C-alpha cells in the first residue's frame, strides 16, 4: 500500500511538531546551561531576569506594595540589578544604556 500525500504530510507535521519542538527545546536549554556555566566560571553572580521580565516584575512591585510577597519580589529585583551593574558578562540581552537606567527598589 502506497502512502497518500495526506498521510505523508501528517507524518512530517507530527515529526516536526513533536520531535522537532522537543529536540529544539533540548538543544536550546542545554546550550543555555553551557552559557550559564561559562558565565559563572568568570564571575560569582549573574543576571536573573530578561529586560521584559524585569520590567514586569518592577511594575508588579509598584502596583502591589502591600502584597505578602512584595519583599521577596523586591529582593529578587534588586539582586538582578546588582548583578547587572557589577558584572560584564550577561546571560540575557541587556544593553549598557538600559542597565545604567536601572535603580534598586
Amino acid at each position, binding site marked *: *500500500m*502506497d*502512502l*497518500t500525500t*495526506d*498521510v505523508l504530510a*501528517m*507524518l512530517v*507535521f*507530527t*515529526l516536526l*511538531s*513533536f*520531535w522537532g*519542538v*522537543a529536540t529544539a*527545546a*533540548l538543544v*536550546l*536549554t*542545554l546550550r*543555555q*546551561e553551557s552559557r*550559564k556555566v561559562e558565565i*559563572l566560571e568568570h564571575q560569582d553572580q*549573574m543576571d*536573573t*531576569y*530578561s529586560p*521584559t*521580565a524585569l520590567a*514586569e*516584575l518592577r511594575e*508588579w512591585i509598584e502596583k*502591589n506594595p502591600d*502584597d*505578602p*510577597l512584595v519583599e*521577596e*519580589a523586591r529582593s*529578587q529585583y534588586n539582586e538582578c540589578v546588582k548583578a547587572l551593574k557589577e558584572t560584564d558578562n550577561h*546571560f540575557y540581552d541587556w544593553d549598557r544604556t538600559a542597565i545604567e537606567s536601572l535603580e534598586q527598589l
Partner: protein
Amino acid sequence: MANSEAKTARAEWGTRFGFLMAMIGGVVGAGNIWRFPYIMGENGGGAFILAFFTLMIVLAVPGLMAEVALGRYASKGVIGAFRDITGPGGLVGFGVVVVLVNIALMSYYSPVVGWTLYYAVHSLLFTFTTPAFEAETFMNGLFANSTLLIGLHTVVMGSIAAILLLGIRKGIERIVVYAVPALVVSLFIMMIRGLTLPGATDGIAFAFTVDWAYLTYSSTWIEALGQALFSTGLGWGIALTVGSYLREYDDVPLGGGVFTAIGDSSIGILASLAIFPVVFAVDGVEPDAGAGLAFVSLVQVFPEIPLGGLVGIVFFVGFFLATFTSGVVITEVSVTTVYEETRFTRPQTIFGVCGLIWVAGLPSAYSVDILDYVDFVVGSWGLPLATLSIITAIGWIMGPERLRLLVVNRNAGIHIGSWWDPVIKYVVPAVMLFIMGYYAYDQFGSPEMIGGVVILITFPLVSYAIMSVADRDQTDYDAERAPVSGGDD
C-alpha cells in the same frame, strides 16, 4: 510534622540533562507505549494528533511549568510546598491528598512494572521465538500465577527502594540519564526494523491517516484531553518534586514545561512508529488496545519477522525501562515529602514508603481484575483530584501572576507572558472539573463510580483532619516565607 528545619541540606540535580531526564523518566510510562498508539489510530489518526497537540500546548505545557515552578519556589516536597502557600493547618491536607494518590497509583503500577520485567527477562531468553509459543496462553499463564505476580511486585519495589537509597544524584539521576536515552534508542531501532518490513506502510496509514470528521467528535477531544493530562502526569506531584531539586540558576519553563510535555508525547509518537509497522507487517495480528497490544499482538509478531528475537529484546527492555523509571520517580514524590515532614531518616522513609506501597499493592499483584478496578477508580477520580489540588493551590491561593514573576520567568530560557495567568487560574481547573464530571456521567452508578466517590470524599476529609491535628502546634510557624494566600491576580 514540619521537621524540615532539622534536615537543612537538600540535594540538587547534578546536571541540567539529569533534571530533564528525570522529568521525562517520571512522566513517560506504560501509557505512552501501549495506550497512545492505539488511541491515536482509533480516533482519526492525524485528526487526533492535531487535537492532542493543541491541548498539550494550551494545557499541559503551562500546567507543567506551574507545577515545576511551585516545587522550585518551595524547594520542598508536596506537603511542604502546600504549607508554604497556605500556611499551617487543614488546607495543607490537600498536599496529603496528592501523596495518598501517589501511593495508590504506585500500588497498582508496581505490578505492571513487574509484568514488563517478566517480559523483558523472557525476551532475553528468546522465549517468544521458540517453536509452538502461544502469546495469549503465555500472558494468561502469567496473570493466573499470583505467586509469581507478587514476587515480581516485590522485586520491583525492592529495586526501586535500592535506587532511592542511593539518593537523588547517585540514585535517580544516574539511572535516568542512561535509561531514558536507552528507551528512545530501543524504540528507534524497532522503528527502523518495522519500516523496513513489507507491509509496514499499512501501519503508518492506520496511525497517520487524517480523518477530519473526527475533529468534530467530542470523543476525540475527550480522549485527547485524557491523554494530554494523564500522559504528562500533570498535578501528580512528580513535576513539583523533581522541580524542588533544581539548582539556583536553572530554567523552569523551557525544560520543565515545553521539553517535558512535548518530549513525553514524542515518545508516544515514536512508539506508534515503532509498533504499528511491525504489527501490520504480519497478517492476522490485531492492533488491540492496552496490555493486549504489548503483551499479545507484538509478541505474536516477533517469531514472524527476521531478527524478531532481537527486536523483542529491544522492545521489552525499553518498555521495562519506561515503566521502571516512572516507578522510581513516582515513589520519590512520597519519599521526599514524608522524609521532610517526619523525624525519620531517608533510609527509614524509603523502607516505610516502599513497604506501604508493597502492602497496598498486594491485592493488585494478586489479581489482575482488582488491578483493573483500582486503575480505573484511581485513574478516573484520584489522579484528577490530585491535579485539581495542586493547580487550585497555584491558581487560587498562590496566584499565577506571582508565581510567574517570581519563579517562572526567573533564569528562564523563554519568556512567559501574562496569557499564562488565566490558563492556570481558570482553564486548567475548569478542564479538570469537566473531566471529572464527564467520568461521573459516563460511569454513573457503577462500582467504579462508587469507588471514585469514596476517594473524592475520604481523601480530602482524612487529609484535612490529619493536617489540622499535625499542624495544630504550629501557631509559631516560622517558615522561611509567610503564607501567601490571597493572590489577587
